[in-house]
């Protein structure tokens, strides 16, 4: 099957866990895959992008690079079973221009996680306090990798958290399967198997179970502690940090919770993170 399957998410929402699972599922080996050789790289890897483009994006302004994204995707989509990780919003949060080519896309798996937990995890990832993490999650103009000179990744427009979610799950014409991080934890085998079926991947019970064992949180963290994780930020003490749901209850102040709920209540309610009475679930 040709066309790209996107592994899409706001950062810290289960994407890397799924990539580790997928790497192990495809390899189907007796031993766990090396976390520093995970497949399904970020679409915004500058090296991959430049290679498909034939020019260097570092010579082009950001707007020109964004307009080239769909053309580069059409080149990458020619392969068989192509998966890419993506953190950018589906449509540009400010200009509204498409960031993804529907013609180059087969489907998307969209990973969503309670934004209250995302705030805690995102804060550790970017090495800033929780207030700063919330500020970014509430900022329509938020980007990843946008500052500090020439980065190995292209700048990725995120939008605020709700924009990000809606841009993917409500994108007209996009075949998308939404996966809640909390369900990945609670009903692991069932949720991962359904994702495999949706994406046309092997879904035999034992094969999925083995890949899950090789990509369990304990396994990922054990490898990270032993040899480090190349994809971690310097600010991450551990990239695979806690791997559970609900840690916001121990970390966030009522004011911080309110700032997230005020901004994202509607999308939180839609995905079961907010009860009918407005209580956080």
């Amino acid at each position: 099957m040709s066309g790209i399957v996107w592994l899409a998410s706001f950062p810290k929402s289960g994407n890397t866990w799924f990539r580790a699972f997928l790497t192990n599922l495809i390899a189907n080996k007796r031993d766990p895959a090396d976390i520093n050789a995970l497949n399904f790289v970020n679409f915004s890897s500058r090296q991959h992008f430049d290679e498909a483009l034939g020019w260097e994006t570092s010579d082009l302004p950001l707007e020109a690079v964004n307009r080239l994204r769909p053309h580069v995707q059409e080149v990458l989509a020619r392969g068989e079973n192509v998966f890419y990780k993506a953190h950018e919003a589906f449509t540009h949060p400010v200009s509204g221009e498409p960031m993804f080519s529907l013609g180059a896309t087969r489907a998307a798996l969209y990973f969503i996680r309670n934004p209250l937990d995302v705030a805690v995890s995102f804060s550790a990832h970017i090495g800033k306090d929780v207030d700063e993490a919330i500020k970014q999650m509430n900022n329509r103009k938020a980007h990843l990798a946008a500052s500090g000179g020439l980065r190995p990744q292209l700048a990725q427009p995120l939008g605020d958290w709700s924009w990000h979610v809606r841009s993917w799950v409500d994108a007209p014409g996009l075949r998308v399967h939404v996966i809640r991080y909390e369900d990945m934890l609670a009903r692991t085998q069932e949720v991962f198997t359904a994702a495999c079926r949706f994406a046309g991947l092997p879904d035999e019970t034992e094969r999925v179970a083995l890949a899950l064992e090789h990509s369990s949180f304990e396994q990922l963290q054990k490898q990270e502690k032993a040899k480090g994780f190349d994809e971690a930020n310097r600010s991450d003490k551990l990239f695979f940090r806690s791997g559970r749901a609900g840690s916001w209850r121990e970390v966030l102040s009522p004011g911080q919770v309110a700032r997230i709920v005020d901004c994202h209540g509607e999308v939180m309610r839609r995905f079961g993170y907010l009860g009918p009475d407005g209580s956080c679930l």
Partner: protein
Amino acid sequence: MPSDPPSNRYTVYGLTVETWIPFPELQPALPGAAVDAVFRLGEVPAELADCRHRGARFQAAPGRLLAWLDKIARYLAVDGREIIVQPEAGATESDLRLFLLCSPMGALLLQRGLLPLHASAVATPRGAAVFMGASGAGKSTLAASFHRRGFRVLADDISVVRFAPDGAPWVMPGLPQFKLWPDAVARLGSTADEPARLRPQVEKRAVPFWDRFHPEPLPLDHIVFLRPSRKSEIEVDRLSGIDRVPPLLRNTYRAQFLPGLGIAASCFESVSRLAKSVKVTRVSRPLDGEQDSMADRVAAEIGL
């Protein structure tokens, strides 16, 4: 006899090129040098009829590479002999030159059987040290810190390797200009003037180094393969034998053009030849690392 109109002739990567407009960033050619390649205006097709491989903004066919950028130009590199340029309305001469010296130039060098590496090269008492790596790996910044320490520089961004009749690899001089990001300019300390932007719409700066340009070829002594890393420490390991081949292939400048140009096999041969005869050290550079300690470490590794 009427004399020829004044021409623009320059020397770059060991070639004498004749151009349709002045290229002030290039070194003038010696009088009487035979012209190896011509850059000229002309009509460039929108498609290559016998295209074998197409990217988002290039098409490659045996002997020909078409590459284009919206609102700049279409370029056609033909048989290693000429680059034809069809500018788009409103494109500036400085953009036409800048982009010609990237992908079209890379294609022309590959077509001539040369081995261009994505690398900067500095002159050391032991020969040329070549800092190789992808965009963002830190090769220009590292070469610029060596320049600041008094070393002469052969090339930034593209370093061309040519084998002498005895089989030894030599590095050809390129053009005396660094392309640096403002953070790199700042980390290198103050220069006399604030360097000009490479293009008004991008942050990258053009920093010429005519003062310490090394305009002659040098034997290649050592390749330092730079990899950005998110770790906090610099990591170094010496690559041996077969392990040298993948990074050299991956960092051959515009290697993605090779299959379509039909010269992948001969380029692979050059890479294997180079891998047998040169030291290659892999250095993982912390993304936010301090520049001086990086230059110290690399200098120590290459025996300076």
